């Protein structure tokens, strides 16, 4: 399988005047470093928060979860927040198994971001 076929697709779109980073693909040991790089350099909201749409991620292992923990710490160090949007059931399940579902701000859709 080619490198391109395994790469994550990451793009930033604007929703309700806020930048939302949209991730598509599997997050595992191979792709987690790319996710970390792209999230750390992604545009933030006016208050320094990072909105991450994970609805296109059907699979995430502990490498991806660890990456999200790392990024959240980095963003919080700069007084921002990380909000995870639209988790697929399997991704949510991994966060529940590791009891990180309460650690993250998780919403079902971008419409729910306001007030988080």
């Amino acid at each position: 399988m080619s490198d391109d076929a395994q790469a994550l697709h990451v793009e930033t779109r604007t929703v309700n005047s806020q930048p939302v980073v949209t991730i598509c693909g599997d997050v595992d040991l191979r792709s987690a470093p790319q996710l970390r790089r792209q999230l750390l350099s992604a545009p933030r909201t006016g208050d320094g928060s990072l909105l991450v749409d994970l609805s296109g991620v059907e699979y995430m292992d502990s490498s991806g979860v660890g990456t999200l923990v790392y990024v959240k710490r980095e963003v919080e160090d700069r007084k921002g927040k990380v909000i995870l949007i639209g988790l697929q059931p399997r991704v949510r399940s991994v966060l529940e198994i590791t009891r990180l579902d309460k650690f993250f701000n998780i919403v079902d859709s971008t419409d729910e971001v306001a007030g988080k």
Partner: protein
Amino acid sequence: MSGGDRLFIELRSDPGELLPLRRRIQEWSQERGWSEQQISEIVLALDEALTNVIRHGYGGATDGRIELTLEQIDGPADEAGLEIRVRDFGRQTDPDRICGRSLDDIRPGGLGVHIIRSMTSSTEYGRAPGGGMLLVMRKLKTHVAVRDNSGAGA
């Protein structure tokens, strides 16, 4: 208890092997009647086991050898299931020291062993004869992952 059909795969300790392997195991498990949820648990346990081998057994080197065996186990309902053996030829470690960290200690890394244990009915680590480690995971047909709700949580 008796063994059923087997799948043997040899792969390199290259993270690029993980995605195609997950797809192959998913297909193989589907053909053997595992439920969608159980398949996702089998695939995740295996992915985490291989990730640990790549990271810790081979220290990130991508040319290490890994042998993977999946075997359907026939038998009564409380014995039937799947046995997964992950054999590597990397660094040996004391099996008693392989344990997941506390989930209350929130930081990147250290979650793989916890996930593997949650996804499987039993997990045994051992030093393999001749070097490397052997991990034997079993998943009963009746097993689904359990969420650990004890402790303070995050």
